[in-house]
C-alpha cells in the first residue's frame, strides 16, 4: 500500500523538472495515476467486504515507534475510493479547466501531493504517521487554496486555512501522543483493545478535547468554520476536491477512526452532538442568504460536515450506518455541484445566482448533472440521498425518548436548508429565461461535463440499487466505525412510516423555502452586520493582537543591538543560575581534595589576569582583541595541563581564527571613540562580575557534588565495541551523536551563506546607487 502513497509523491516531485512536457498533450498521462490507484482499491473491495483488513508494516524510525504501518479496512477503503475516484474526475476536469494556465504543471504537482497526503492519512495505522500525513494535507491545501497567488484575497484565505488547520494539528499531535503513551502503543489497530484503559484514565477529557480541536478545525466545525468559505478563492476543481470528499472530511475520518478508541462516553457523544448540531443548523440557514454559487456550496458543505459530526455524536448503531452512507452521498452530489459551478463560472464568468438564469438552453448536459445532484441532495425517493436522509431520521427518531424529538427537529431544519441550498445551486441558474448576454455560452470540453454527469448518475444508481454500496463497502465502513458488526442492510423502500413522512415533508418544505427565498445583495449585507460577533472576527482580532504583541516584543527584546542581546542573555542566565545555586544551599570547599598548585599554573593565571586588565582598560580595539586571544590561549594551556588535548587543539585553532576575523572586521571600523557613559560602564561591570562569580561558584559546586560517571563509563566501554574507535571525543562526534554533528555542519553552512550573501548583497545595492 506504500506505493499508492508514494506514486503521487514521486510524480509530484517529477513535475518540477518535467513540468514543461506535461503542459503539452502529454497531460493526458496525469489522470492515469488516480485511475490506477482507484482500480487498485476497487480490486481490494471483495477482500475487505469479507471483513479482512489488509495490513502492511514497514519500519521507518523504529527506535521512536514511527513506522509506515498501513491498514485497509472498511472505513479506509471508503475514503480511499472517494479520494482516488473523485480524484480521477477532478483530474480530467481540472486538465480542461486550467488548460493553458501558466502554472498548469504546478497545479497538478500540488494536487498529486494533496491526493497522496490524503491517501496516507486514511491508510495510516500508526498515529504518528497519520499525523505526518494530516499536516501534509494542511500544507498542500495551503498551496492549492492560494493557487491564484497574485490575488491578495486568495493569499489571505490560504493563510487563514493553514493557520486554523495547522493550529488544530498541534492540538491533535498532543492528543495523539498522550493517548499513545497511555495505551503504550502507537498502532491504531492495537489501540482498539485499549478503549477501557483510555476512557477511565484521568487524562481522558484532555485527550478528547485535543483530538476534537484537531478534527473540528479540519472539518470546519463551529466556531472554526470560517476558513472554509474563504477557501473558495481556490480554483473550482480544488474546491470540488477538497470540500466534497477529502480535506474537510479528514476531520470526520479522524473522529470515525477514533470512535472505537475514545468514543462511547458521555463526553464524546454530547460534545459531538452539540458542536455538530450547532454547525449544521447555523450553516444550513446561512447558506440560504448567499448569492455566490460557491458560497452556497461552502455553507452547505459545512452543514453536511455538521450532520456527520452530529451523527457520530448520536453514536447509535443506526447513526453510524447513517454516517457511513451520508459520507458517500454527500461526496457524490457535492463534487458534482462544485464541478457544475466551475463550468458555469468558466463559461459565463459569473457565479452570482441573481444574475444567472435559463442556462438549461445552452448547457443541457450540465443541467442534467446539476439536477440529478440537487435531487440527490434533496433526498428525492430513488436517489441515494433519499436513503441517506432516511437513515439520518431513523437515527434521531430512535434516540433516547426525551431527546429524540429535539434531535429530529434539528435534523429536519438542517435538511430543509440543505434541500433549498441544493436547489439554489443546482437548479436556479438553469431555470427561467436566458438573458441575451448568455446566448453565446457553449458547452465546454467533454472532459469537463462528463465527470460531473457520471458522479451525479452514480447518486441515482446507488439509490436504486443500494445493495451495490451497502453490501460491498458501506457495511464494512459502519463496522469499522462501530468497532463491531452493525448488521447493516440498505433498502430502497422502508415502508410507509414516520421516517418517510418526515423525508417527504422535508422535501416539500425545502422546495417551498427555495421558491420563496430570494437571496439578494441587501439581505446579504444585513446578515453581514452580524459579522462583528462572528467567530471569524474574534479569531482575526486575536491574530491582530498577536501581531501587535510581536511588534512590541521585537522593539523591546529584539532591538537589533548585539550589546543589548548579550546583556539580556547573560542577565537571564545569571538569574536562573543564581536561583538554582541558592536552592542548593551553602557551598563547602574541601581543600584537602584539591591538587596542589604548580608554578606554571600560577604563571598562567598571572598572565591571564594581566591580559584581562589590558582588555578592560585599553583604548584600542585591536589591543583588546589581541588580549582576549591571549586569555583564550591561556585557557588552552590549562586544558593541556588537565589532559584534554582535543579540547585544547580546537580551542587553540578557533581562538586564532576568531582573532583573525576580529582584526579583519575591526580594521574596517572607524577609530575607537569612547562614547559610553559612566553609568553604563558600571552596569556592565556589575553584570560581568556577577556572571564570573556565579560561574566560579558553579564550578566549586560541581566539585562538591558526588561524581557521576555512568555516561563516561558508557562511552569508555563502548567506544571500541560499537564505534571501532579509541578517541572518545571524536567517536561521539562522528558516530554516537553523528546526527547532531550533521545538523551542526548544516548550521555552519547556513551561517557562511548568510555572511556571504549579506556582504555581497550590500555591495550590489551600493553599486546600484
Amino acid at each position: 500500500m506504500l506505493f499508492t502513497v508514494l506514486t503521487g509523491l514521486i510524480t509530484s516531485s517529477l513535475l518540477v523538472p518535467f513540468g514543461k512536457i506535461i503542459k503539452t498533450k502529454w497531460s493526458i498521462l496525469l489522470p492515469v495515476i488516480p485511475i490506477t490507484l482507484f482500480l487498485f482499491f476497487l480490486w481490494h473491495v471483495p477482500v475487505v467486504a469479507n471483513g479482512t483488513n489488509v495490513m502492511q508494516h514497514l519500519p521507518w524510525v523504529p527506535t521512536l515507534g514511527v513506522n509506515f504501518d498501513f491498514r485497509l479496512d472498511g472505513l479506509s477503503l471508503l475514503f480511499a475510493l472517494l479520494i482516488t475516484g473523485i480524484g480521477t474526475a477532478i483530474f480530467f476536469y481540472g486538465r480542461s479547466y486550467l488548460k493553458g494556465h501558466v502554472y498548469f504543471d504546478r497545479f497538478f504537482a500540488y494536487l498529486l501531493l494533496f491526493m497522496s497526503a490524503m491517501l496516507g492519512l486514511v491508510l495510516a495505522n500508526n498515529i504518528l504517521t497519520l499525523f505526518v500525513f494530516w499536516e501534509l494535507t494542511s500544507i498542500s491545501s495551503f498551496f492549492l487554496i492560494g493557487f491564484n497567488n497574485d490575488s491578495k484575497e486568495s493569499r489571505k484565505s490560504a493563510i487563514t486555512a493553514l493557520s486554523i488547520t495547522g493550529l488544530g494539528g498541534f492540538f491533535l499531535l498532543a492528543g495523539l501522543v498522550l493517548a499513545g503513551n497511555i495505551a503504550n502503543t502507537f498502532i491504531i489497530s492495537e489501540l482498539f483493545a485499549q478503549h477501557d484503559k483510555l476512557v477511565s484514565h484521568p487524562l481522558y477529557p484532555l485527550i478528547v478535547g485535543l483530538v476534537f480541536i484537531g478534527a473540528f478545525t479540519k472539518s470546519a466545525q463551529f466556531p472554526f468554520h470560517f476558513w472554509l468559505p474563504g477557501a473558495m478563492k481556490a480554483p473550482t476543481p480544488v474546491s470540488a476536491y477538497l470540500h466534497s470528499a477529502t480535506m474537510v472530511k479528514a476531520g470526520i475520518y479522524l473522529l470515525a477512526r477514533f470512535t472505537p478508541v475514545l468514543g462511547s462516553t458521555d463526553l464524546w457523544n454530547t460534545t459531538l452532538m452539540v458542536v455538530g448540531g450547532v454547525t449544521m443548523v447555523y450553516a444550513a440557514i446561512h447558506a440560504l442568504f448567499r448569492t455566490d454559487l460557491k458560497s452556497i456550496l461552502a455553507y452547505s458543505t459545512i452543514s453536511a460536515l455538521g450532520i456527520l459530526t452530529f451523527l457520530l455524536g448520536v453514536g447509535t448503531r443506526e447513526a453510524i450506518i447513517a454516517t457511513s452512507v451520508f459520507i458517500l452521498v454527500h461526496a457524490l452530489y457535492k463534487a458534482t455541484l462544485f464541478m457544475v459551478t466551475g463550468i458555469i463560472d468558466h463559461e459565463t464568468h459569473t457565479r452570482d445566482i441573481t444574475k444567472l438564469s435559463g442556462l438549461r438552453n445552452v448547457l443541457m448536459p450540465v443541467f442534467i448533472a446539476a439536477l440529478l445532484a440537487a435531487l440527490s441532495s434533496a433526498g428525492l425517493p430513488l436517489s441515494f440521498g433519499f436513503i441517506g436522509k432516511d437513515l439520518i431520521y431513523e437515527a434521531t427518531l430512535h434516540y433516547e425518548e426525551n431527546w429524540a424529538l429535539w434531535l429530529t427537529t434539528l435534523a429536519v431544519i438542517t435538511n430543509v436548508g440543505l434541500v433549498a441550498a441544493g436547489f439554489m445551486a443546482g437548479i436556479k441558474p438553469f431555470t427561467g429565461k436566458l438573458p441575451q448576454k448568455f446566448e453565446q455560452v457553449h458547452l465546454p470540453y467533454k472532459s469537463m461535463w462528463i465527470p460531473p454527469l457520471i458522479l451525479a448518475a452514480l447518486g441515482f444508481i446507488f439509490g436504486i440499487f443500494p445493495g451495490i454500496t451497502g453490501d460491498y463497502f458501506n457495511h464494512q465502513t459502519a463496522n469499522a466505525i462501530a468497532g463491531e458488526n452493525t448488521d447493516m442492510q440498505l433498502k430502497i423502500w422502508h415502508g410507509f412510516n414516520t421516517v418517510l413522512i418526515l423525508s417527504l415533508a422535508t422535501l416539500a418544505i425545502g422546495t417551498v423555502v427555495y421558491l420563496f427565498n430570494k437571496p439578494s445583495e441587501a439581505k446579504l449585507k444585513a446578515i453581514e452586520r452580524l459579522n462583528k460577533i462572528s467567530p471569524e472576527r474574534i479569531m482575526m482580532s486575536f491574530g491582530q493582537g498577536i501581531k501587535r504583541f510581536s511588534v512590541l516584543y521585537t522593539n523591546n527584546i529584539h532591538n537589533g543591538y548585539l550589546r543589548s542581546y548579550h546583556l539580556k542573555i547573560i542577565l537571564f542566565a545569571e538569574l536562573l543560575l543564581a536561583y538554582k545555586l541558592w536552592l542548593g544551599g551553602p557551598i563547602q570547599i574541601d581543600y584537602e581534595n584539591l591538587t596542589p598548585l604548580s608554578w606554571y599554573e600560577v604563571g598562567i593565571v598571572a598572565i591571564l589576569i594581566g591580559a584581562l586588565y589590558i582588555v578592560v582598560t585599553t583604548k584600542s580595539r585591536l589591543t583588546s582583541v589581541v588580549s582576549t586571544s591571549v586569555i583564550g590561549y591561556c585557557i588552552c594551556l590549562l586544558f593541556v595541563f588537565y589532559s584534554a588535548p582535543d579540547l585544547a587543539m580546537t580551542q587553540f585553532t578557533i581562538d586564532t581564527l576568531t582573532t583573525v576575523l576580529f582584526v579583519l572586521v575591526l580594521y574596517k571600523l572607524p577609530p575607537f571613540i569612547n562614547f559610553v557613559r559612566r553609568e553604563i560602564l558600571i552596569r556592565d561591570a556589575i553584570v560581568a562580575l556577577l556572571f564570573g562569580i556565579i560561574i566560579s561558584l558553579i564550578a566549586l559546586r560541581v566539585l562538591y557534588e558526588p561524581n557521576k560517571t555512568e555516561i563516561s563509563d558508557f562511552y569508555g566501554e563502548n567506544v571500541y565495541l560499537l564505534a571501532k574507535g579509541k578517541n572518545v571525543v571524536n567517536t561521539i562526534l562522528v558516530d554516537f551523536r553523528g546526527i547532531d554533528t550533521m545538523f551542526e555542519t548544516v548550521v555552519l553552512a547556513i551561517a557562511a551563506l548568510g555572511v556571504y550573501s549579506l556582504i555581497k548583497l550590500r555591495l550590489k545595492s551600493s553599486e546600484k546607487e
Partner: protein
Amino acid sequence: MKSAILQTATRYLLPILLLFSFFLLLRGHYYPGGGFVGGLVASIAFVLHSFANGTENTMKILRYKPLSLIPIGLAILTVSATLPLLFGLPPMTGLWLEEPIPVIGMIGSALFFDIGVYLVVIGVVLTILFTIALND
C-alpha cells in the same frame, strides 16, 4: 602586510600545515584530532597564506571558491550517513572494511563522515573570512 620573511615561510608552511591537517583528520578516530580540528588547521594554513600574499593570490591557488566546498562536504556527510540504508541497516550505522589498508589503517563510513565535516569547516571558515577580507 608585505613581509619577505612571512612570504618565504608560508611557501613552506602551507603544504606542511595542509599535510598536518590531513594527518589530524585521519588519526581522529584513535588519537586526538578529527575532521573539525583538521578543517580549522587547514583553514589557518590558507589564512596565513592570505596574510602574507594577499587574499586575491590565495583565491588563485584555491582555484575554486571556498563556498563550493560546503555543498561537497554536506553531500559526503549525507551519503556516509545514508549509505547503511542500502545494506538494510538504520542510517548512521558504522560500516567498516574487513581488512585495514596500509598506512591509512581501518576505513569506515566514520572516516567519510569526518572528511565531510573537514570540507564543510574549511568552506565555512574561508568563505566567511575571505568574503569579509575582500569586501572593500
